[in-house]
């Protein structure tokens, strides 16, 4: 049953919506509009005046090899983060779901990493993998592996992916776990009687029935990898070495605030906005089709 509340006047509803609307206006629409506006200008080196260049900033960006490679980096990074955050979470959820006793305790413990802020998580991982004093780096050295993410592209990427994905595993675990618990036990039993062993059941029954959850998490995690990993990257690699971990969002920051190229930075923000819009549309259009049952 749908419950509807009807208001007599218009004052109360407006008052109720106002705070949220105001916040959106000030912190979202206003900066977004400014970004669009500024993307059409090039400020002079001292920031005293700016010159209208139309789509010049965009033209320049699309030809810029650094910007293009940042696209590739972002694609690799977000794919890896999404996979690294979802697959272990699913695995843990499946294991916890099989437990009869103590599932609650595991669940609670597995939630903890989610409470750690991305920047703090970044620092944590940074300490562990610090080439000189890090515990893990030291052990790797003992094993004969010379870890140095400050110089090595691949290691740098691996580290930011791990640090970004780590805290998200908790979040994803919670959703997967709830999703698994919602699958009627009799379905699993029916499949077992039909002859399906654990993995067969997992791929033919559990995973398809979990697909709404998986789809939701896919969207959420990609968005996370795009926008919320800034703190991790900033603390661990600052986009380096040689831009190997400069994802689009980080480039907006480094070009705008470090490089002081506000025009280009704004244009990048606008492009990012469009990319996210497209991504969301694609995901909903194509993935969702396979989700329904």
């Amino acid at each position: 049953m749908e419950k509807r509340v009807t208001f007599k006047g218009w004052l109360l509803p407006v008052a109720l919506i106002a705070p949220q609307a105001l916040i959106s206006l000030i912190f979202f629409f206003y900066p977004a509009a400014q970004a669009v506006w500024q993307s059409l200008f090039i400020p002079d080196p001292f920031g005293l005046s700016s010159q209208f260049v139309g789509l010049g900033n965009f033209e320049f960006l699309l030809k810029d090899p650094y910007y293009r490679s940042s696209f590739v980096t972002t694609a690799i990074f977000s794919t890896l983060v999404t996979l690294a955050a979802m697959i272990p979470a699913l695995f843990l959820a499946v294991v916890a779901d099989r437990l009869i006793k103590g599932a609650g305790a595991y669940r609670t413990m597995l939630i903890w990493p989610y409470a750690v802020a991305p920047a703090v998580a970044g620092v944590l991982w940074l300490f562990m993998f610090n080439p000189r004093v890090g515990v893990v780096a030291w052990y790797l050295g003992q094993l004969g592996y010379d870890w140095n993410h400050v110089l090595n592209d691949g290691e740098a990427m691996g580290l930011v992916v791990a640090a970004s994905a780590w805290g998200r595993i908790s979040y994803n675990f919670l959703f997967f776990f709830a999703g698994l618990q919602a699958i009627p036990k009799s379905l699993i039993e029916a499949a077992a009687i039909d002859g399906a062993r654990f993995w067969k059941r997992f791929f033919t029954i559990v995973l398809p029935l979990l697909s709404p959850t998986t789809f939701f998490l896919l969207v959420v995690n990609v968005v996370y990898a795009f926008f919320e990993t800034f703190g991790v990257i900033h603390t661990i690699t600052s986009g380096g070495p040689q831009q190997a971990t400069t994802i689009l969002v980080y480039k907006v920051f480094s070009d705008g605030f470090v490089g002081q190229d506000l025009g280009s930075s704004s244009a990048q923000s606008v492009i990012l906005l469009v990319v996210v819009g497209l991504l969301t549309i694609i995901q909903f259009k194509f993935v969702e089709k396979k989700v329904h049952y």
Partner: protein
Amino acid sequence: MATVDLKDIKKSFGKVDVIHGVDMEIADGEFIVIVGPSGCGKSTLLRMVAGLETITSGELLIGGKRANDTEPMDRDIAMVFQNYALYPHMTVADNMAYGLKIAGMPKDQIKAKVQEAAKLLQLDHLLDRKPRELSGGQRQRVAMGRAIVREPSVFLFDEPLSNLDAKLRVQMRLEIKDLQAKLGITSLYVTHDQVEAMTMADRMIVMNGGVAEQIGTPLDVYERPQTIFAAQFIGSPSMNLMDGRIDGGQLKVNDVSLGPVDTREGDVTVGLRPEHVFADSAGVLRLNVHQSEPLGANTLLHGTLEGKAFTASLPGVHRMPGNDRDMSLNFASENLHLFDPKTGKRI
């Protein structure tokens, strides 16, 4: 096709004993109904045969081989669940084909099998639908179909009809029985409905509180119930009970003598089915009628007899008896059942 032997099967969940030892040998092709009130352990017993619950102690033999530790998929059984447990993301055809695909049967054979089963169950036109697009009765049929395409050696049913309306239930009951007779597959069928038990069973297990009160053919249980529980559970309306006494070879209820019996002296519980009394002005039983329920073919008269509730079922239409509402009833002595009031067992 297989025999199923239960040897002193017991089940405990932690400290709670749920099944207290069931012994039964089921012949190949037999239709066994497990009947009893809610919570008596019917599903648990069935699920142990399916391999979905571990057996705490005792032995389960399927086809003569010990199956206690065999995985469900290796027991060659099929089960119809109370909620049908159809795979919601698969079509009707895929639901039925699932087990065959896993068994690695070639595609064209699967198709033929599914077609055949669908025809048998009148599902041909629904093969491309998803379970959510089906009615309850149709879902029930799909669940049946999924079970029969695999041609298992044992069928297990857990209250498969309890979600259907009364009319459909009667129809499906006949269809299931028919199908089982046609296929000749050993079946265990759980229900709490004694009419289903009576009409479908070759033999039935009457369960109560984790104990098999009686195992026998429906007529056996009806005509010679071994315990008070079985006597009251099977038959509708249920058997009347009276507190009686055997004194010098005479069976008495209060001061009314019900005739001579040759068993042990002392207190007994006397059972008499409502349909086994008849109106007779010379009868010894005096029923004080409180209410009558005309059912058309017969009439139920509810009242008290020697201070205890008593129901009589008389053929045809009966009006409430005259002023004092008293009515004389008689019975044939072979229809009396005597139980030991302490143990509840038949004397």
